[in-house]
Structure formats: structure tokens, C-alpha cells
């Protein structure tokens, strides 16, 4: 249907135009809201059209589809090259979905509405660009584009210590990006002679990267890998995340955890594993250790938190650790499950952050010791919280379980009974969620806050949550819908490994 139609470019242009128009709406908050909703809605429709036209049959299922390549700066080998495989396809859909729902969820933002909405759409452009770019130069540009709107979202609409959190977020991840940039340039300068012509093209570079000297490969790999794991973020490079989340506005947190973290793991799969299979195999155990450390450390840290949102932030670290562990197995199952977990975590974490935001909004606090016994007061919010927590702790029938179970199976397959270490975290995860629920919505009604005028969910909160929960259940009950998209793309990523 879209053989010669630049649908991916359209996917990037629509939110960009939307962003400009929304900024232009200025003081007309209502117009800005509707503009943002419409444009993000169109983006979601386009993403859905792409996924529906995405071919799963071999050999098409194993190639990049909707490929667009134009020379940009031919002298330097920079091209405008877009394309999607199953892995990026899912991320594209997730991005379009979450931005749309986050905009709807932010319906009651009154402060500088047009800027807020415009930044969200700009963020959409950046994230979609990262997931579709097949040229290093383009990839890096989009990567940096993402940073800016998120910085402003935290710095302007954030909590009391937003200045500290936003600057920390910006500097920390920017330093990591610079390492990545150095890695990209080194890769460019070493691969170009081997190719005979300058090129930033990911696929072309990957075809010769094996011929680069081992030591240099290792240095480039380290620079890129560092850039990515800071973004994921993995222990011990994670401390920007809890601060950023605690201060960020709800929609900002949804996109930060739902999409920005995925850029890191996506980079590892698309670039590190694909371009440097040999180094990946050498570093396999180290990667697995970083993953397991993040899983267990994150889970313990969760248990100690008293702020609901900070707990959810640490749980992201733990669950992204599962992604890294899946990647580290370097098996079909582990890699596919890692991608599945990225998708699952995106859906689930959106529910979790929305729940936290609603507590802040309605009860005026997210401090667990101040809450208690709220279930009869806010039944919808409590039910949503419970479903979100259950999904996140890996309850079967919901999407998180499929990913977790598959990653751990692959871990056992490859690392034998070492799987006991990460799987013990399953009990910890259950513990912090169940305990948090016991203290915040069950038991006797709290007297520490005013519960007289507490209001249950509004429609613009219920609708996005209902959509997300519907998808969480759908893909949990019938995971083939997602897995069949992922699986054909895995062998290419792992070609050099096996």
C-alpha cells in the first residue's frame, strides 16, 4: 500500500507541524489542547497504518520496511535514511500511543498549555526519529532532539526542586550522549576507509565493522554502550532517574519512563549487538551482571521508598534490567523477550505513573505513610492502581508476565541456575507493590490528610488508563500479536553472534 509513499517521513512531519501549530496557539489553551490531541491522534493513526501494513512473511519480514534513503550531505556520507523492522515497528507504535494518551491525560494542565503540548509533540518527533533512523548522524540528531523538550517539561512544569532535577537530567544524559557521539565519530572515521567512501549508514557500517582492529572496536563499543546504559538507566549510572521522575509532571514521567528509557536498550540492540557481535559475545557476562545488578538493586531500593512515584521510578530500573538481561543471553528467545519487555514496560509504566500523578492530584501527596484506606473513597483509582501493580509484578494474564517469563527461561537456558539470582527479585517486586497497596489504599482510612473532598478519576484520566489496561490484558492473554512482529527481526540482529 505504501510502497513508494514516504510514510515514515509523514510520521515525523505530522507531529512536527502539530508542534509548531500548538506553539503558535499561544494563550488559547483550549485550541492548543485540541490541536495537540488531533495531531498526536493522526500520528497514532499513521503508526497503526504502518503496523497493519507491516509484512511478516519472509523474506519481507526479515528486512527493513518502508525504507526511505536520500542523500543529505553526500560529501560526508550523511544520508536521510529511515526504515523499520519488527523491533523498531513496535517502538514506533508505543511512542505514538503513549504521546497521544499522555496529551489526553494532561487535559487539565492550565499553565502555559500551548508550550506544554507543543513540547510533547516535539518529543514525539524526536523519539519516532530515533526509532526509525538508519543513519548514525540522523540518529544522533533525533537523540538530542528528545533531550530538549524533556528538559523543559521538567524545568517548567516540575515539582519544587525541578531546577536541580532538570539540570541533573540534562547534564548527566548529555555527557552520556557525548560519549556516544565520540563513539559514532570514531566508528565513522574507521569504517569509512574500509567501505571506500564516507558513510554514516548503520547497515553499511555494520557490514565492515568486524574488520576494525579489536582494541579500537572495544573502545568504540565502550563509548556507545556507556551512552546507552546511562539512558536505560542501569546501576550505577541511574541516579538521575529518580530525581527526574519525582520532579517531572505526570505526562513527562510517562514519556520519560515509557519511551526515553527504551531508546537506551534500543540502541544496544540496534547498534552494539548488531554492529559489534564479537565484542558483545566477549562482554556477555559483564552485560548480564549489569542487568542482574540493576534488577536486584532496583527492587531493594523500591522497598525502601516512601514516595509512590520514587518507588515506581526505581521499579523502572529493575524492569529495564530485565531487558538488558534478555539481551545478554544472545539467544532468539532472550532477545525477543527483551524487546517484548520494552513494549510491556512502556504500557505498564504509563499506568503506574498516571496512578501516582492522580494520587498527587487528588490526595495532595504521594507519601505512603500519609495515605491509607483510600480504596472505598476512590474505587476506580484503587482498581487501576491494583491492576497496574499486578501487571508490573508479572501477574500471568497480563503483558509483563510473558516478557519476564521468557527472559528468565532464556537466562536459565544460557546461564543455568544463575537465574536464581534475578528471579528472587520476583518476590521482592511482589513485596514492594503489595506492601505499598496495603499501606496506601487498604486498612483504616488515613486521618493525616483531608479525605473529605477527594475525587475519583475524571474522564480524561479514565479513558487513557482504560486503553492501556485493555492493551495490557490483550497482549498478556494473546502475546502472539506482539511476538510475531518481533521474532522475524531477531536473526539479523544476532547474525554475527551465532
Amino acid at each position, binding site marked *: 500500500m505504501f510502497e513508494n509513499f514516504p510514510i515514515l517521513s509523514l510520521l515525523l512531519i505530522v507531529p512536527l507541524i502539530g508542534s509548531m501549530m500548538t506553539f503558535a496557539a499561544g494563550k488559547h489553551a483550549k485550541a492548543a489542547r485540541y490541536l495537540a490531541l488531533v495531531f498526536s491522534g493522526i500520528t497514532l493513526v499513521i503508526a497503526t497504518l504502518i503496523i497493519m501494513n507491516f509484512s511478516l512473511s519472509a523474506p519481507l519480514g526479515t528486512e527493513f520496511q518502508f525504507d526511505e534513503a536520500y542523500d543529505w550531505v553526500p560529501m560526508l556520507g550523511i544520508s536521510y535514511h529511515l526504515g523499520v523492522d519488527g523491533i523498531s515497528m513496535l517502538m514506533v507504535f508505543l511512542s505514538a500511543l503513549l504521546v497521544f494518551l499522555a496529551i489526553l491525560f494532561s487535559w487539565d494542565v492550565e499553565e502555559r498549555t500551548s508550550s506544554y503540548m507543543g513540547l510533547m509533540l516535539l518529543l514525539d518527533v524526536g523519539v519516532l526519529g530515533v526509532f526509525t533512523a538508519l543513519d548514525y548522524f540522523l540518529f544522533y540528531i533525533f537523540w538530542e532532539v528528545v533531550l530538549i523538550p524533556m528538559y523543559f517539561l521538567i524545568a517548567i512544569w516540575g515539582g519544587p526542586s525541578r531546577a536541580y532535577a532538570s539540570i*541533573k537530567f540534562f547534564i*548527566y544524559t548529555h555527557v552520556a550522549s557525548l560519549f556516544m557521539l565520540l563513539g559514532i565519530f*570514531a566508528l565513522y*572515521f*574507521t569504517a*569509512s*576507509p574500509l567501505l571506500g567512501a*564516507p558513510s554514516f549508514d548503520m547497515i553499511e557500517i555494520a557490514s565492515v565493522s568486524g574488520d576494525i582492529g579489536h582494541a*579500537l572496536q572495544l573502545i568504540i563499543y565502550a563509548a556507545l554502550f556507556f551512552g546507552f546504559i546511562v539512558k536505560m538507566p542501569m*546501576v*550505577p549510572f*541511574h*541516579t*538521575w532517574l529518580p530525581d527526574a521522575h519525582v520532579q517531572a509532571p505526570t505526562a513527562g514521567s510517562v514519556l520519560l519512563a515509557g519511551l526515553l528509557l527504551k531508546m537506551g536498550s534500543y540502541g544496544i540492540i540496534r547498534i552494539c549487538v548488531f554492529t559489534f557481535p564479537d565484542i558483545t559475545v566477549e562482554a556477555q557476562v559483564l552485560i548480564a551482571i549489569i542487568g542482574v545488578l540493576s534488577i536486584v*538493586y532496583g527492587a*531493594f*531500593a*523500591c*522497598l*525502601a*521508598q516512601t514516595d509512590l512515584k520514587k518507588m515506581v521510578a526505581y521499579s523502572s530500573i529493575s524492569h529495564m534490567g530485565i531487558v538488558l538481561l534478555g539481551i545478554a543471553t544472545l*539467544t*532468539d*528467545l532472550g532477545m*525477543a*523477550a527483551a524487546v517484548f519487555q520494552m513494549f510491556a514496560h512502556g504500557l505498564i509504566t504509563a499506568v503506574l505513573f498516571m496512578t501516582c500523578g492522580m494520587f498527587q492530584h487528588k490526595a495532595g501527596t504521594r507519601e505512603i505513610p500519609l495515605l491509607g484506606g483510600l*480504596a*472505598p473513597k476512590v474505587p476506580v483509582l484503587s482498581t487501576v492502581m491494583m491492576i497496574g501493580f*499486578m501487571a508490573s509484578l508479572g*501477574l*500471568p*494474564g497480563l503483558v509483563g*508476565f*510473558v516478557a519476564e*517469563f*521468557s527472559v*528468565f*527461561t532464556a537466562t*536459565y*537456558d544460557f546461564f543455568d*541456575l544463575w*537465574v*536464581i539470582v534475578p*528471579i*528472587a527479585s*520476583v*518476590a521482592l517486586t*511482589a*513485596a514492594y507493590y*503489595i*506492601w505499598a497497596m*496495603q499501606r496506601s489504599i*487498604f*486498612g*483504616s*482510612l488515613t486521618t493525616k490528610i483531608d479525605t473529605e473532598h477527594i475525587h475519583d478519576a475524571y474522564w480524561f484520566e479514565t479513558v487513557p488508563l482504560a486503553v492501556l489496561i485493555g492493551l495490557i490484558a490483550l497482549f498478556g492473554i494473546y*502475546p*502472539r500479536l506482539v*511476538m510475531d512482529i518481533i*521474532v522475524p527481526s531477531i536473526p539479523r540482529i544476532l547474525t554475527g553472534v551465532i
Partner: protein
Amino acid sequence: MMYWSELAWLIPIIPLISFVVVGFLGNKAFKRIENGGYFAILMAAVACFLSLMVAFEILTGGYPGGTFIQSMNWMTVPGFTFNMGIYIDTLTALMLIVVSFISTLVVIYSVGYMHEEGEKKRRYYAEISLFICAMLGLVLSSNFLQMFIFWEIVGLCSYLLIGFWNTKPSAASAAKKAFLVTRIGDIMFMLGLFIFFVWFQGNLDFSYIFNNVDAFLGGNDLLTLGTFFIFGGAIGKSAQFPLHDWLPDAMEGPTTVSALIHAATMVKAGVYLVARTYPVMVETPNTMLIIAIIGGITALMAATMALNNPNIKRVLAYSTISQLGYMFLALGTGGYLFFHTQETNAGFMSGMFHLMNHAFFKALLFLSAGAVIHAVHTEDMRLMGGLSKKLKITSLVMLIGCISIAGIPPLSGFWSKDEILAVVFETGAENPLFYVLYIMGILTAFMTAFYMFRLWYMTFAGEPRDHHVYDHAHESPKVMWVPLAILAALAFGSGFALFFGFSEAIQPTMFHPHAETWTQILEIVFTDVLTYLSIIAAVLGIFLAYLMYRKRSINPDVFVATPARRKIYGLLLARYGFTAAYDWIGLKVVYGVAKAVDWFDRKVIDGIVNGFAIVTIKVGNIVRRGQTGFVQSYAALVVAGVSIIVILLFLFGGVI
């Protein structure tokens, strides 16, 4: 030709409809009809009807080949196949009967028991429907992964229903404990699944595994570990030592929930899991030995804790744990014996037989206790007494339950308990350890008879101890006592299934069961001296309870007369310190580590990050002095910088 089994996939779907309709379609539609209660009954009854039809078809050999298998692909990744499907053999059929029938009775009973709960009833009926769906799905599963999925969902329902009165802190706390403690078992179950998954080449289907067990035997250690971990799941779910401590707390839920989930069905899931895995389990005798030992320990230990507890539901909870221990003892012993002798034995059959009988008489006992609680609004037996005058039907049906569980012939409990003890004794010839287990079993039988009749006498016999409680007591409505009467009939007579080919029907094919006539069975049972030993144990227990709590010729206070006795008495009430130990592990160890990690995170890791920032600012302040404002010095720096870059490029790449 159409078979009922082809409709089996509908069985879990029907209560699922009830869950969705009652749970999500609002209060208004159901206000008039018991907030969804009648709809839940209807759906449970339809599922029950279908289940009975399917079970009947399978048990009578109406389906060609005997085992009905249906399967669809759930997810495929190279090397691993995940399926979902239906697997019905006679074992499934037995579970279908037990689960669907008791579920239906409990939901009917709930209309009376939960009548006063108002709008909350809708949540109750929705959650109990979800439970019925998941439990039926669990027994119908065609592979281990699917079974695990439903296994977790019944756990969720258990969590939700224990915490039904969630504004009560003790209920919320009990729900948490149930979820987390069983989660430990679930992790072991998962480990077992990984081992099976890889061992059986990426396929967890029962049919595939059972057909290929022989092909994969060899390096037996790993398989032993696998079956042990699978059993670990059962330890959590079926509340076996040392993960038993959540079940007494689970009594915080409504009594109907205790009867259905924590006595008759969900806690049996562990037993069912071991029975289901039997073709693999019997190849790993060490696991079988462990199962038997854990079962024996649990049976005895839980029985001792029931001896002096004043709470009517807690006594029944300990009793449930104890009886589940019997079932594991039977399964473990049977498998161990089979591995060593390759001979048919009653281990498997008696375990499953006891599962069925126990489901009926324990559901009866719990629901009767519920009728008492409903009448007197207390669970403390010290405030009861003399209630048989007011609750005639309840006292009578509960007496039947007590006699049955005590093991007095010809009631159902006798037949299965006797078979279990017989096979344990027989296995003593292979391994003397089983003689010890046999003695533990006999002791348990004695204590069981004692604490059950203590319960009955304290509740129903003698003079009322609290007149306020007594005066307000009233017999339950019909909607409650009719299900009780049906269960009483089953508690009386389900043991006779033994004479109608239960044994041959239920045995796995590897046992090559052979048919015995009812006269042969009677002859075997009543010519064995062991039979009389277990009857005597039961009668002695009843007699002791009679002397202490009816005739009062022995004062119960003798057990707290000296400090040493009081210590033992207190130890039993404190559940041997398990509760305290769990709290200590949770609050001190795990939470302590969490606190330490949090401190480390804020002070050390983030401290280093912030340290970098501070150093950078300081260095910046120094370097700032270089910002002289003279263009010449800037130009010099630019030239120097470019030179360095060019040199670096020349060294590394040679491009440009």
C-alpha cells in the same frame, strides 16, 4: 458424533462472563438481584453442569482413547513453543467434579451468608466468579505454563478475597502475607518450569512430556531438581511446611472463601500439580521421598497447633493444612514405592481419594462453622456452647463432618485415610523411615479426632457460656442449610466411590491398575490389623475430647498447670514461632537490606555524581580566569585545539 469434551473449553469461559458482567457493568443493573449473586449462581451452575457431563464422559470411557486433548499455539519463538489448550483425563475429571460442584454450592450458600454486605457484594460475586474461572482453567490446562498462569490467577483471587474486608488492617495484612508467602513457592515452580522447558526441548505440553519421559531420562540429578522445584510450588500453594503460615491468617476472609478457596479447591492445586506431574515425578525417587517427609511433618505439626486454638476457623485451617499433608504423604510414598518395586500401589489413588473426600467434608465443616458464625457473630469458641439446641441442622451436619474427618467407618474420611496409612506402612519395608512416617500419621489421626470433637463439643454441647451470644443465635436460612445438607450426604458417602471402580479409574496408566470387586476391597481393609489401629486412634481421640469437653472429668486446665506446660501451650498458640520468624525475615532482614541499599544509593552513588558536579563547578571557577576578553588569546587556543585534533585524526584514522 459430538462429545461433551469438545465443549470443555467453555467451562472456564462461563464464570469468566459472570466476572466481567457482574464486575464491570455497574451496580445499578444488579441491585435487585443480590448485586449479581443470582447471575453468578446461574453461571456457576451452567459450568458445573458442563463439568459433570464432561467428567462423566471421560470417567465412563465415553470418549475414545480416554484422554481428550485440544491445543492451540499461544506464542512461538525459535526453539520454544508456548501452547494453550485442554487436557482431560480421569484425574482432570475428578478435579472438575470437585471444583465445579463445591463452587456452585458455595455461591448459593453465599446468598445467605453475605446478605448483609450491601453493595460490596458485587465485588464479592465478581471475584469469586473469577476464581471459579481460574480454578477450572487450572485443572483443564494442557501444559505446565498454562497451569502456572491459572495458578497465579487463583492466587490473585485468594489475595483479593482474603482482603475482602480490606478496611480491616488485619485482613489487608493477611492478604499480603498470603500473596507473598505463596510467591516464594511460585518462584520455585517457575524454576522447575525452566528446567522442564529446556529439558523437554522447548515443549511443556503434558501429552508431549508424558509420551517422552523415557527418552529424556539419564542425567537424573537435574530432573530431580526440576521435580523438586515443581513441588516447591505446591509447598506454597498447599500451605505445607515451611510455607504453611499464611493459611491460618487467610481466615480473615469471609468463611465462604475459606471453605471454597482455602479448604476445598485452591489449596488442593498443589496436590493436583504433584499428581499431574506424577509420570515424571516417579522417575525421581529422591523428590518423592522429600514430598512424603514434608507431608508427614506438616500433617503432624499442623494437627498439634489445632489442639488448643480457641478460634473455630483457625482450628479448621490447621486441620486443612494437616489433611493436605496426608495427601502429599500418600503421593510421595506411592511414587517412592513404585520407583523401587515397579508394583501397583495405593499411594496415588489414596492421595487423590483423600483429596476428594476432604474437599467434601472440609467444605461442609467450614460452611457449618460459617453458619455458626453467622448465628452468633463471633469466631471464639469460648463464647459458644450449647448451640445444638438452637442450630439443630447445623449441629447435625457438622457432626457428620467431624465423624468423617476423624476416620470412623463407614464415613468417607475413613476409607482414604486408612488407605494412606496402609501404603505408608507397606513402604516401610523399602525404607524404615516410612515406619516413622506411619507413626506420625497415626498420631495425627488421633489428634485429628480429638481436636474436631473438641471443636464440636465446645460449640454445640453443654451449657451456653455467653448468654448474650446464645440468645441471639438462630438457625440459618434455607439457602444456607440446603447446601450443607447436600455436602453432609457427600461427606457421609463419597467414600463408597471406592466400591464403584474409583481406584482403577483414577490410576495413571503406568500403574496398570487392576479391578477389584467390593467384597475383595472390604476383605483387604478389614482383615488388616493396621485398619483397627487407625480406628482405635480415632476412637481414643474422640473419647479424650468427650472426657475433657463434655463429661468434664478431665479439666482442660491441666495443660496449663505448670510453667513448662504453659510454655508448650503458648508455643502452639504462637505457631512454633513461624509467624514471628516470617515477620523478622521480612521486616528486619529484607527491609533492612532495602534501607541499606537506599542509603548507599543516596549517599555513595549519588554522592559521587554530585561530587563530580561540585568539582566541575570549582574547576570552572578557576578556568574562568582564562576568559580574559582578549581576542588574541582565544585565537591561540583555537589554533592549539585544531592542531591537537588533526594530530589525533592522523594517528587513529587517517581520513580527510
